[in-house]
């Protein structure tokens, strides 16, 4: 009953999306206000209907209704309740339903909060959102219907892939989708602006908060995914340059570039056509990501849905939307005239450099991801492009980005004197070189990566502090503090996000350069040294039972000198319904290091394979990403962004940027 209602709601949502895609657009073209206003109720209604449909599917999962094909294939009565709920999007059909739910949410938000937008622009934005909705709802209804029934319902389900039975699944996909799909707003604004033939400072101001929101969700989503892989896959790796990871990383890089170039549009009315192009590309890469994940064209460990028909459908969506927008861009971009003039040494130029580096870095990830496919189609060569390529080709861009960041963040718009910026940044430079040299001597004889990254991190954070110091102005401490407290939140957001970037950079380098691991067969009672730690295998229990798994659990004690640092219980689980083993690593988290222990199979001569990893600064990677996202959130809460568009900038005691 609920299932049929849900299905019906989805079909209705499709019809409403069709209306939303056409009527407001025609209205905006002809100047008919009533037609333009259809967009808002349509967007709200579409969201309500898809939400109802999603609730119906959730109900089917929670009540274990195995007459539904995807419930039977992905659930089981013995599965804990949390995973019954998250299982809704732990499969192809359900995850697409979540995708359109979030798409509709963004469309509805544009209707609810877009009151300050000019009527025509709002109508066109809602129309483009509606058109994307039409495409994806059609995709769901015709190729991936989650409400498909089974003729003969099974007695019980086949259980969810055990790797997905984790709290990670509760948060990673929703955040990632909020990011992917959030970029559809930037795309809609770009297409609407092209139709209108006008991009001005106001457009920059409207598009920024949406891009910022999408980027910060994407940041959190990627960080959660990386953290999940770190503890769940049992290898202790945090990034694998897997095609599916790359699929989420490309839109992240492009949207980071977009975020920065939209500032130039807002403040200086320059880089207009480039910004519009980036907005199209950012969502284009989101669609490419969806295509890669959903079609399984580049097979990877994530591909849980390989189906050529679906692949062709998404490819068609990708071609129509990205291709269509690019054609529109080619036709109309010349209408976008730049106004702001600026000298070579200026904030504008620095942001262009930022954009070139981020865009080329995104391109490197893209070409590395699709190259095996291209080589096979064009030259019939089977090639692999693995982490060694990406590490080598991608890293230099991030190093260059960190090098220019403090200078670009500090110098003024329009025309800057580099010498002055150089003098201000001297303390940061000295601190960076000193710390880099210190790390270099302390680690003696190991790779140069970590000292370089430490220096870059100090340089970036030091530069941020210098900037805040300058903004605090002259006077006694109290005056300075008051000025700092009075800085716009966007400025604080910038400082926080840049620091987060530095922390992640350092975390990645430190973990990569300094981690140590020990792999051996250990008997119960054995003790051995790993780095500065004494590791003891105290006991192994082979008959641990969970709700839907059995496990071998080891008790491991780690000591430093006489002091017990951690007592860990890694498990090796077996899920009988899915017939799959998983490794549950036990991790003692710390600020400066993680201790990571994995128990393996029993060995022939007795004992167990035991892996002990010491992972220095591991948590800095994700902490940095979360700090970046917090910076984004701070910026988003700035009055300038919250206030309905069109509001005049208010005067402040401190100069705004």
């Amino acid at each position, binding site marked *: 009953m609920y299932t049929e209602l849900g299905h019906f709601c989805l079909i209705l949502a499709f019809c409403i999306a069709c209306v939303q895609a056409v009527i407001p657009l025609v209205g905006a073209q002809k100047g008919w206000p009533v037609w333009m206003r259809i967009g808002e109720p349509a967007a709200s209604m579409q969201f309500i209907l898809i939400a109802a449909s999603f609730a119906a599917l959730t109900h089917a999962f929670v009540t274990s209704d195995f007459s539904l094909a995807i419930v039977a294939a992905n659930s089981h009565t013995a599965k804990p309740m949390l995973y019954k709920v998250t299982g809704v999007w732990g499969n192809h059909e359900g995850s697409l339903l979540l995708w359109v739910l979030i798409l509709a949410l963004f469309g509805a938000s544009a209707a609810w909060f877009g009151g300050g937008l000019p009527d025509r622009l709002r109508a066109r934005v809602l129309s483009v959102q509606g058109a994307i909705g039409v495409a994806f709802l059609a995709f769901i209804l015709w190729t991936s219907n989650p409400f498909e029934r089974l003729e003969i319902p099974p007695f019980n389900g086949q259980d969810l892939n055990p790797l997905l039975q984790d709290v990670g699944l509760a948060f990673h996909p929703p955040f990632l989708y909020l990011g992917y799909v959030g970029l559809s707003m930037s795309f809609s604004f770009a297409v609407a602006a092209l139709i209108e033939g006008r991009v001005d400072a106001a457009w920059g101001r409207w598009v920024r908060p949406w891009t910022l929101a999408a980027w910060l969700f994407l940041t959190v989503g990627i960080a959660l995914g990386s953290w999940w892989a770190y503890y769940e896959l049992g290898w202790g790796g945090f990034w694998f340059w897997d095609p599916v990871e790359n699929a989420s990383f490309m839109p992240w890089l492009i949207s980071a570039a977009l975020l920065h170039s939209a500032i130039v549009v807002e403040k200086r009315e320059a880089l207009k056509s480039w910004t519009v192009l980036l907005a199209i590309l950012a969502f284009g890469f989101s669609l490419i990501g969806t295509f890669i994940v959903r079609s399984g064209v580049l*097979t990877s460990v994530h591909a849980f849905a390989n189906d050529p028909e679906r692949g062709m459908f998404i490819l068609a969506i990708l071609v129509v939307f990205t291709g269509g927008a690019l054609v529109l861009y080619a036709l109309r971009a010349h209408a976008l005239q730049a106004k702001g003039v600026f*000298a070579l040494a200026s904030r504008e130029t620095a942001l262009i450099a930022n954009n070139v580096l981020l865009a080329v870095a995104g391109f490197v990830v893209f070409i590395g991801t699709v190259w095996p496919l291209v080589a096979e189609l064009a030259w019939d060569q089977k090639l692999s492009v*693995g982490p060694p390529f990406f590490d080598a080709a991608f890293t230099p861009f991030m190093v260059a980005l960190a090098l220019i960041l403090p200078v670009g963040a500090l110098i003024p718009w329009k025309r800057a004197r580099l010498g002055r910026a150089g003098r201000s940044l001297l303390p940061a430079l000295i601190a960076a070189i000193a710390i880099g040299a210190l790390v270099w001597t302390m680690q003696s004889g190991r790779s140069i990566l970590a000292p370089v990254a430490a220096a870059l991190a100090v340089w970036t954070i030091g530069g941020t502090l210098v900037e805040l110091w300058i903004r605090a102005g002259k006077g006694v401490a109290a005056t300075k503090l008051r000025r700092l407290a009075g800085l716009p939140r966007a400025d604080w957001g910038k400082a926080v996000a840049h620091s987060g970037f530095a922390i992640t950079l350092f975390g990645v380098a430190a973990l990569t350069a300094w981690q140590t691991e020990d792999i051996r067969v250990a008997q119960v009672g054995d003790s051995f040294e790993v780095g500065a730690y004494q590791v003891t295998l105290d006991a192994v229990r082979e008959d641990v039972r969970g709700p839907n798994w059995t496990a071998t659990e080891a008790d491991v004690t780690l000591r430093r000198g006489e002091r017990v640092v951690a007592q860990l219980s890694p498990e090796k689980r077996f899920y009988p319904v899915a017939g799959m083993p998983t490794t549950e690593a036990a991790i003692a988290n710390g600020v400066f290091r993680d201790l990571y222990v994995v128990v393996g199979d029993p060995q022939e001569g007795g004992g167990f394979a035991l892996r002990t990893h010491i992972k220095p600064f591991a948590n800095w990677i994700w902490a940095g990403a979360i700090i970046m996202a917090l910076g984004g959130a701070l910026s988003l809460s700035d009055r300038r962004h919250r206030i309905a568009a069109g509001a005049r900038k208010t005067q402040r005691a401190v100069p705004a940027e």
Partner: protein
Amino acid sequence: MKRLALILCLLAAPVLAVEPSEMLADPVLEARAQALDQELRCVKCQSEAIASSNAAWAADARVLVRELIADGKSDAEVMDFFVDRYGEYVRMRPAARGAGLVLWIAAPLMLLGGIGIAALTLRRRRAAPEVAALSADEQAHLDELLDS
């Protein structure tokens, strides 16, 4: 910069599935073997190096790498051994020749192109008059203000 890139590229996060029973007793040789494990693809897996794969094929490949190293083969000889049998596909780091060459030079070319386009646009912008003329709307607004 080039040298830095070279140094940085020698590092790939080690992620090890190697079993204790497969490992060589000599830590120097084992370290070489683990580095090679990162460079070789498990041809039966989905974009995974033999270093991180739990598949049987990967385990056999790891044992083979260690046997070849124990026989006194150099790293390059071990790679050649695998490439001869399984083709270029087995390299995780594509060789910089043929189709692979395009891949390696794509990023530097793109960077140069990006810098070139940016520089050209900037120069054209600088050649343009410093003060942009008023748009028609602005001129109308200005006239209105002056009239009132």
